[in-house]
């Protein structure tokens, strides 16, 4: 939220940083696999569908050209019905190091974020991923942060706890 001092939730798990003055979200996570493997899980379509989409839905890749200058579009399906769709460009695919994409939820076609993922080799077969999302303004950022909770109002806390992130 933009209305408080530094908001940061840190555990040994995923770390989220939402700068009160910048419309950004930073997500940091360590993985027990080397960078080449983590990177592959991020761009190989057969692997991506296994984890990237929301848990309660099936993920369908309509386009997935994971190369610099390529594009993507995917949809979340619930009982075979498309409930949300997202698209964007692969601005840069730098193997095992860096992945830069634009990201738009089709439900809000004027909204676009820039997603930069960096893969840091921690040695000993471990990788730290740092995802930086830059959106248009603080209001949009806060809406994204709160979106999971809005769904929860309708679906209840129990289901909410099982829900996954915006994409």
């Amino acid at each position, binding site marked *: 939220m933009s*209305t408080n001092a530094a908001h940061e939730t840190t555990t040994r798990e995923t770390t989220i940083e939402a700068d009160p003055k910048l419309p950004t979200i930073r997500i940091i*996570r360590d993985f027990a696999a080397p960078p080449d493997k983590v990177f592959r899980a991020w761009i190989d379509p057969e692997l991506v569908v296994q984890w990237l989409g929301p848990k309660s839905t099936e993920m369908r890749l*309509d*386009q997935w050209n994971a190369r610099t200058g390529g594009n993507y579009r995917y949809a979340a399906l619930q009982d075979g019905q498309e409930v949300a769709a997202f698209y964007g460009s692969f601005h840069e695919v730098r193997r095992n190091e860096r992945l830069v994409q634009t990201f738009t939820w089709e439900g809000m076609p004027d909204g676009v974020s820039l997603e930069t993922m960096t893969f840091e080799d921690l040695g000993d077969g471990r990788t730290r991923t740092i995802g930086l999302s830059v959106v248009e303004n603080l209001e949009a950022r806060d809406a994204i942060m709160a979106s999971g909770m809005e769904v929860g109002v309708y679906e209840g806390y129990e289901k909410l706890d099982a829900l996954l992130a915006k994409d």
Partner: protein
Amino acid sequence: MSEDRLSRVFAALADPTRRDIVARLAVGDATVGQLAAPYDVSIQAVSKHLKVLEDAGLVSRSRDAQRRPRHLEAEVFDLMTAWIERYRRQAEERYRRLDAVLASMDDEASGTARATDARSAEKEPITNEGAAS
């Protein structure tokens, strides 16, 4: 917090003007007049926004005192922290599935083969655009 209360909180914060009012009250208490000053709206319009925030329990004021400064309930800050924690947990859950994917990849390939696989994934893009509509 009850679900009904949560609904009112989110309805209250769904409006950008009200979020801005909350942001300004986070800095310090303010009267309706002070809150209305930066907006191109009437005192009455701001009062309506404040009423919504008060009904949601986010803002309080002295009894029957229209001019008394409004005060932001400390609970709002907890709520904001809760939003971030919720978002974090959602990301963590997604990444745990990635953990499982990475573990399943263990038996598949050596480092060289992995790079080859990644390359072929790029060479054979998915373009069934027709299925999108």
